[in-house]
């Protein structure tokens, strides 16, 4: 595991992406393929096993160190990461041992943990603590913890692998999207130089992503409206529907295969001819309107969906682009050409819809139409340059824009704080916010409505962190109760009724919009005003 540890340190010890990429590339080129195959799985975020429970790890660490569980808890909460905490407090390893290759560590020490009883796991862990020290011990814990963030974004890993293989990063992303099963053969295939294996039906194209448009479009900034095509910005799951080699597959943008969750879309895809790839949005749909995003999540959370459930949550695939037709990659053709193909391809099945174009003559007219977004249950409008090809990721700026409607905002009082994770594990950066429970500001009680952890600058986070440390009124697990004094404007994209929350509402994409230092907690908003938003929402 030494070479892998060295890679980790090289990546961890620089903030420069070029150096991280170079270190990864060297590793892919130099490390034995049987080790690198596993390293790649870990680097791309695959879990090796269902994680060994924190409770057990802490109990065994208590035995090994003699420290009470409360003290391990204090350490864990201060460090913010159990793997690191354990590597710091456990006694040094017994004797120095010869290096164990990563493959052996994974196959002989880690994968077997999944089948073990608690007692066997304990023996295995105590054995590992004797074998590994320092950074190796930290990495071992990370490998069994199921959420290893290596310090290199997926894109960096993909670029490094592409460089090692001598292929275009887009090609590597294409090869990597889908299911990678670690093996010497699979790793070798990824690293192979030729690109003659486009027949694999299981691989989506890299999604082309839109940039956010902050200011209303003008002729000066965007050019003539006639050079652009507009559509509604749907609020669902971005996905590719693929029909190849007699199979239908639905891939989400997170590179997850979600076909099983949406059998009616599979059935609709089966009607497409072979060699077809559509880009679009999976939406919960009722007659002529999308349903709130929350109704889709119910589906995703179930692995096997009973046919009867469809009646409750009907789902459609709203197609807006054709990436492949008759086995031909269309991505280099322009927007209008792909649109023409798309309109020809759709079989007229109710579950497979065509995202309509919005007709507009001027930017002002589009602005007026955009204002209808909330009533239509969409997030705003999309703009696609008529002559643009279908790009990769978010790299080339200027061809696709999302012009979202302004978010909702609500003034809330901070009532609880938790430490962040990763880079922010030593700071209080995750906050719970409350509003007044009745209809009167400053009357009744504060009821928590949402959590948020983004939107402040590092400086603001440091100030808030300091306030929390000085104004904590108690502790509940990892939550610190905070004196209700700070007011924040929370921006959010939508609101749903929720019986899982005491407040009865759940906000979508909440984030801190502004720290209202000029406001007193008595000036925060009320639950009544939020609930009225719920009623006004189109159903």
């Amino acid at each position, binding site marked *: 595991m030494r070479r892998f540890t060295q890679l980790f340190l090289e990546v961890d010890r620089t903030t420069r992406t070029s150096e991280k990429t170079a270190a990864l590339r060297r590793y892919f080129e130099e490390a034995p393929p049987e080790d690198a195959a596993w390293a790649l799985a870990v680097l791309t975020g695959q879990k090796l096993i269902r994680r060994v429970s924190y409770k057990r790890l802490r109990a065994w660490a208590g035995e090994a160190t003699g420290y009470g569980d409360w*003290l391990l808890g204090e350490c864990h909460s201060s460090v913010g990461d159990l793997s690191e905490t354990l590597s710091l407090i456990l006694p040094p390893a017994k004797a120095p041992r010869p290096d164990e290759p990563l493959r052996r560590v994974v196959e002989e020490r880690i994968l077997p943990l999944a089948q073990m009883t608690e007692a066997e796991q304990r023996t295995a862990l105590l054995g590992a603590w004797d074998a590994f020290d320092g950074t190796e011990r930290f990495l071992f814990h990370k490998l069994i913890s199921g959420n290893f963030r290596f310090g290199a974004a997926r894109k960096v890993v993909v670029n490094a692998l592409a460089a090692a293989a001598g292929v275009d990063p887009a090609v590597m992303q294409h090869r990597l999207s889908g299911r990678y099963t670690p093996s010497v053969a699979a790793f070798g295939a990824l690293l192979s130089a030729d690109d003659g294996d486009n027949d694999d039906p299981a691989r989506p194209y890299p999604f082309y992503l839109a940039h956010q448009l902050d200011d209303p479009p003008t002729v000066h900034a965007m050019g003539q409206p006639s050079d652009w095509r507009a559509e509604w910005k749907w609020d669902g799951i971005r996905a590719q529907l693929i029909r190849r080699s007699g199979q239908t597959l639905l891939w989400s943008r997170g590179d997850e295969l979600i076909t099983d969750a949406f059998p009616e879309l599979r059935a609709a895809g089966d009607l497409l001819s072979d060699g077809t790839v559509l880009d679009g949005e999976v939406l919960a749909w009722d007659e002529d309107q999308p349903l709130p995003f929350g109704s889709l999540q119910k589906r995703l959370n179930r692995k096997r969906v009973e046919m009867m459930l469809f009646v409750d949550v009907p789902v459609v695939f709203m197609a807006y682009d054709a990436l492949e037709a008759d086995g031909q990659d269309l991505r280099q053709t322009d927007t209008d050409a792909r649109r023409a193909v798309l309109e020809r391809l759709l079989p007229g099945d109710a579950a497979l819809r065509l995202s309509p174009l919005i007709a507009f003559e001027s930017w002002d007219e589009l602005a007026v139409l955009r204002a209808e977004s909330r009533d239509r249950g969409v997030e705003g409008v999309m703009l696609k340059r008529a002559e643009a090809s279908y790009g990769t990721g978010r790299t080339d700026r200027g061809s696709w824009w999302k012009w979202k409607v302004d978010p909702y905002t609500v003034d809330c009082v901070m009532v609880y704080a938790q430490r962040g994770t*990763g*880079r922010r594990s*030593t700071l209080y950066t995750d906050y719970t916010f409350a509003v007044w429970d009745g209809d009167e500001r400053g009357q009744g009680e504060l009821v928590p409505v949402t959590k948020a952890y983004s939107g402040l600058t590092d400086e603001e986070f440091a100030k808030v962190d300091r306030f929390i440390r000085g104004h904590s009124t108690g502790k509940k697990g990892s939550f610190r109760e905070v004196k209700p004094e700070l007011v924040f404007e929370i921006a959010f994209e939508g609101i749903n009724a929720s019986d899982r929350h005491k407040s009865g509402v759940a906000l979508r994409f909440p984030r801190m919009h502004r720290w209202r230092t000029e406001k007193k907690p008595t000036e925060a908003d009320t639950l009544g005003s939020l609930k009225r938003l719920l009623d006004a929402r189109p159903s």
Partner: protein
Amino acid sequence: MTHAHSDHATPGSQRYLCSDVGKPVLAQRVHAEAEIEGLPYGKATTINGVTVSLHPAGHLLGSAQVRVEQRGRVEVVSGDYKVAPDGTCAAFEVVPCDRFITESTFGLPVYRWRGDDETTTEMLAWWGGNRDAGRTSVVFAYALGKAQRVLHMLQTGVDELPGPVVVHGAVKRFVDVYRDAGVALPEVDTSTDGSRKACKGKGLVVAPPSVLGTPWLRKFAPYSTAFASGWMAIRGNRRRRGVDRGFVVSDHADWPGLLDTIRATGCRSVGVTHGYTEVLVRYLREQGMDADVVPTRYEGESDSEKEPPMTTDDHG
């Protein structure tokens, strides 16, 4: 005064008492007119019928523990202290007492320091690597104590340093004081056109963390950054700082250091202040000791490594 960090030594008083070694250090921190009395380590004086003496705390140049005795009862206030000797100040001495008031900045079992030698080797390797890549090496360290300690570690760690050294003015003041006290330190320059030219791409810059993002620092670009602090033992602290490297160099006692010292004083009662007070008190009580929290008014406004570094402009 136990030592001259600003959370312990504040200007405004007319008279100060500190160790005689610490006098020139403290003089940098208080009014020029203030009267500073220096007391040699171990020498007793009597104030209002209480016998008072100062003893080395190993924290920085002139740092002291305060021993007070009256009617046979002895109490010792540790101030900030570090157990391992380091060559920039008198080594910590255990002072037997009835009650010991200890700091607890690093009072968690996750903090266990390695020897300085290993860290020195790492720093020199990092500096050499940067020089080979044509980058300046920038170490962020608190201006009093830590900066001189880092310079001393490098100076005594190798026959010839990989390149010239430039320090920030805030660091330079105390480099001079340390050098006058006989501490081995490399030749250093402040930032001038000439010194920057010699330093850029190969030398070392030692500056307080507050220079990050300022034009003062940008003139040394391209550079690689490191932070020297006990807090760097935790990966999250370093990543949040946004520096390339973290070197674990602390001027406080680690967890074993705190426990060993408490035991060695033979005290029957422990007061815990400044840091993880509640954790250490609870642990000591579990071990059957009489321990309590001693509140402080001076947390969170220091220029030492008293609390985890928050942002770049915060000296914490």
